[in-house]
């Protein structure tokens, strides 16, 4: 029975938790009550057998446990009665909502954790803790900070949710686009944190990328929106290159040098399916386009066989909907592949001369690479040094140092 309940916990606890947060109006109360309910389940189901609807049993038991907890916490009898009455009222009102609303509870949880009124680091910590059920220790290790820092962030976020009354709701139609953008941004940030550490030794931290993909899969199930599909596809395609992207020692392998037989074809196929569905809707956005660019790479057997013209065309589309100097930089690199290094260099110089990206190590690394290919060794050296000054990740630094040494 313990094993069965353990498996049930893994499958259902987040859904039960999300519903309890709605019924009880309090994260911590919901968590405590849920754990007590699962503990009770092991005992009582052993004795009395499995209920017809385990999830409903857990929710209902948790509600009663919560009321008991509130009684225990408050000393004065009147306060007790007032509190209990309030929880009872709240949960009856909320319990009356239509059955399909219950499906939305996990969405409500995701949206509240990613509310823009919370600081971005708080959104990430809340999402990983409340939606993904990671411990504060796991989150702290993943973000190279202390568990106390994460715990404080979460406490402050919950206090703000409570005191400023951030609603536990799926956003209104008017707010939906910007709120969804916030959620997608959190998920992508988590993925990127796992994909390439922002500073320090290791190039990738598998756990976070896996969590982000899991989150993406959950979100696309609850909300089949084109950009949700696009983001999931983008993450799957990046993930498909994980083993090919770095040597066992953690050194960088460029896309053009990667062993493509190591690319995970299953993930690529899944990613492409999501891209197609998103493009069919005609309401796709920047995540879908970025995923499509990644997919063009994934289709090519080698760098030489890559359809660079299509990649440039996709960057053109991306620039129209989400213009940014970084996108222009990536487009310049693609132009260099399609039209030769000189063409790409002209564009990169244009970007740097306008004052953009002067502190972005990849801009200087790209410039250095093109100068190198054109035989302009002195300029390449200067640009590699500039890039090295700005690069923070160890594997990237080692790569740049190697390139610099090769120039001499």
């Amino acid at each position: 029975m313990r094993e069965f309940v353990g498996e049930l916990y893994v499958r259902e606890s987040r859904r039960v938790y999300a519903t309890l947060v709605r019924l009880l109006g309090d994260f911590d109360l919901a968590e405590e009550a849920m754990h007590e309910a699962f503990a009770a389940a092991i005992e009582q189901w052993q004795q009395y057998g499995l209920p017809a609807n385990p999830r409903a049993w857990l929710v209902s038991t948790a509600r009663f446990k919560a009321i008991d907890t509130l009684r225990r916490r408050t000393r004065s009898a009147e306060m007790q009665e007032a509190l209990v009455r309030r929880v009872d009222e709240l949960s009856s009102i909320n319990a009356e909502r239509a059955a399909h609303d219950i499906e939305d509870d996990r969405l409500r949880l995701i949206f509240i954790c990613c509310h823009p009124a919370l600081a971005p680091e708080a959104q990430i910590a809340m999402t990983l803790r409340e939606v993904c059920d990671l411990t504060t220790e796991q989150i702290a290790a993943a973000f190279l900070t202390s568990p106390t820092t994460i715990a404080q962030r979460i406490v402050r976020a919950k206090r703000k949710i409570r005191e400023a009354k951030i609603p536990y709701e799926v956003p209104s139609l008017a707010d939906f686009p910007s709120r969804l953008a916030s959620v997608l941004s959190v998920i992508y940030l988590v993925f990127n944190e796992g994909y390439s550490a922002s500073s320090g030794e290791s190039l990738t931290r598998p756990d976070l990328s896996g969590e982000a993909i899991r989150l993406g899969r959950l979100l696309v199930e609850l909300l089949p929106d084109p950009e949700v599909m696009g983001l999931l596809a983008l993450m799957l395609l990046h993930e498909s290159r994980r083993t090919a992207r770095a040597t066992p020692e953690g050194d960088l392998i460029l896309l053009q040098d990667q062993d493509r037989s190591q690319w995970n074809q299953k993930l690529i196929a899944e990613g492409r399916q999501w891209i197609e569905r998103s493009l069919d809707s005609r309401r796709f956005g920047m995540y879908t386009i970025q995923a499509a660019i990644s997919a063009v790479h994934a289709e090519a057997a080698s760098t030489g066989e890559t359809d660079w013209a299509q990649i440039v065309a996709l960057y053109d589309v991306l620039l129209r909907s989400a213009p940014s100097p970084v996108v222009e930089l990536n487009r310049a690199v693609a132009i260099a592949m399609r039209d030769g290094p000189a063409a790409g260099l002209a564009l990169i110089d244009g970007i740097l001369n306008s004052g953009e990206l002067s502190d972005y190590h990849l801009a200087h690394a790209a410039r250095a690479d093109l100068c190198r290919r054109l035989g302009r060794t002195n300029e390449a050296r200067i640009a590699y040094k500039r890039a090295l000054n700005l690069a923070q990740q160890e594997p990237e630094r080692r790569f740049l140092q190697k390139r610099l040494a090769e120039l001499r």
Partner: protein
Amino acid sequence: MKYMLLIYSAEGAWTEETRAQCMADSTKLCHELAERGQFLGASPLHPVATATCVRVRNGNRLLTDGPFVETTEQLGGYFLIDVANLDEAIAVAGRIPAASKGTVEIRPIFELSGLPSPK
């Protein structure tokens, strides 16, 4: 749930015309909120040059001329509203005319019991 909306903007960024327009639009917003039972109060404030600061230290009441602190954006007015939750407060804040030039800070009101009702 009550919120105070504190409106900050650079005093120098307003002309007489734009300020008058802002007040007219803000008044309109007040009436719309009142119709929905959400309006508790609002007002523009005179510029910070008219401010006086009071501190009582060691039983002495000390006065200084000017605002609490010199800032690039100054407190120019407020709204006091009663809405369902923060999202609704954010929606109201977004409609405040000065929000397009400055910043609106939303502070949840701490309900203190035992206060008298305003006249």
